[in-house]
């Protein structure tokens, strides 16, 4: 209850500062529209914004799901095999040195102008944090548990399944929480580079036509959706993966 009150208070302060800035500087509305105008545009263009939000939402969720699955499997593979660790880990680190932004045009070329290239972009953005967080957790399994399992006659595969993976799930959850915040960034980058749908496309379009109010409306929707996605992932992780901690 107190947290909700704090959030409302913070919002009111932010809106007041925003409006105050506009009154104080007299900045024209096509440079920085006021909160009232943005709210009005948000309402009048709700169908348009909702349509594009849905497209971006699908990209984000699909990228998140695929990234979580691929990242999870990679982490398990790396943790299970020292050979894989030696071969793949340097490649993983090197891949992080390549700015994903720079890949976006190539992804559009490879996976098309539609939803596919954005899903792949999202996947690329979240793959490393998910893999890294889960892998570290798998490697940190207390040695005493592993020794106990060995003494009980367990094979490495069963130790992975019954001890290391359950013990590493809270780490996987940390990766997913990070991924929930990063995933929309991936989708938006993909849409900026080339798209005809989605919030990123809508923001570029509105900006180009000096409809700054629409751009801000789309931006606010994007931010709110990201916060909601993070909260949902956090809740889901608490209910399932974190019970191991």
């Amino acid at each position, binding site marked *: 209850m107190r947290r909700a009150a704090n959030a409302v208070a913070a919002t009111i302060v932010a809106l007041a500062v925003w409006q105050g800035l506009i009154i104080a500087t007299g900045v024209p509305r096509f440079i920085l529209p006021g909160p009232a105008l943005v709210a009005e545009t948000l309402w009048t263009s709700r169908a348009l914004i909702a349509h594009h939000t849905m497209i971006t939402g699908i990209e984000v969720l699909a990228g998140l799901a695929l990234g979580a699955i691929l990242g999870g499997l990679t982490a398990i593979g790396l943790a299970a095999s020292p050979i894989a660790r030696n071969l793949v880990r340097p490649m993983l680190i090197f891949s992080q040195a390549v700015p994903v932004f720079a890949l976006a045009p190539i992804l559009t070329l490879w996976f098309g102008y539609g939803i596919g290239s954005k899903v792949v972009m999202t996947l690329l953005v979240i793959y490393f944090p998910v893999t890294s967080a889960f892998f570290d957790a798998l490697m940190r399994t207390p040695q005493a548990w592993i020794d106990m399992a060995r*003494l*009980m006659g*367990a094979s490495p595969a069963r130790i992975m399944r019954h*001890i290391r993976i359950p013990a590493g799930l809270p780490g996987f959850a940390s990766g997913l929480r990070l991924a929930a915040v990063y995933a929309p960034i991936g989708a938006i980058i993909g849409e900026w580079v080339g798209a005809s749908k989605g919030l990123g496309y809508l923001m570029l379009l509105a900006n180009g036509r000096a409809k700054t109010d629409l751009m801000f409306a789309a931006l606010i929707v994007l931010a709110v959706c990201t916060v909601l996605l993070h909260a949902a992932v956090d809740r889901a992780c608490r209910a399932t993966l974190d019970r*191991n901690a």
Partner: protein
Amino acid sequence: MSAPGIFLQGHVAIGGAPLVPQITLDVAPGSWTCLLGPSGVGKSTLLRLIAGIADEATLTGTLAASDGAPLRGRVALMAQSDLLLPWLSVLDNVTLGARLRGADTQPERATALLEQVGLIDHAAKRPAQLSGGQRQRAALARTLMEDRPIVLLDEPFSALDARTRAQVQDLTAQLLSNHTVLMVTHDPSEAARLGKAILILNERGLAPWPVPPGAPPRPVDDAKTLEAQGALLAALRAAP
């Protein structure tokens, strides 16, 4: 079940550095042997060597069971940390070994063991909901579930308060009566109560220590046991 003895003779080294002079450890079949000594002298390493999980240490010499059959698969280890998996219920922790081997979990036997250690009402609980003594009894049930004739105990009771410790000691002594037990402990009173044989390991090597009369577990207030406990503590303190 006839439990074999353990015979270990030779030099132990950790990462190439010799641990103690050549030692000869002879644990009698079907009885309880206590191993005492200063911290860091290698008592736990000896247990891990016997258990076959001491990747960090090497033994140059002999390690064998008294009946000539291999030790592998016949040894269980119970440590100071109960090692209960926090995401499993008490019952699932007790049957963990079977699942790790892909074998039948024998739920009836597990339930009977939980009954014996007095945890039957807590079978569905998570370890975090148990007290320290209850957790150690759950670990005991898990160890018994493995049904290994040789049981190695590495200070399993040291984290418990005095009253709980005495109770869990009695229970463990009763349930492990047919097993060959080698217990590492820091506690002279525990050794004096439970040991059929007492050994002291220090920088000079491994040496036997006289055991008080009477069958273990000896009463906590038995005069001879208390006397032995005092003498044992004095010997441990006198060590360099």
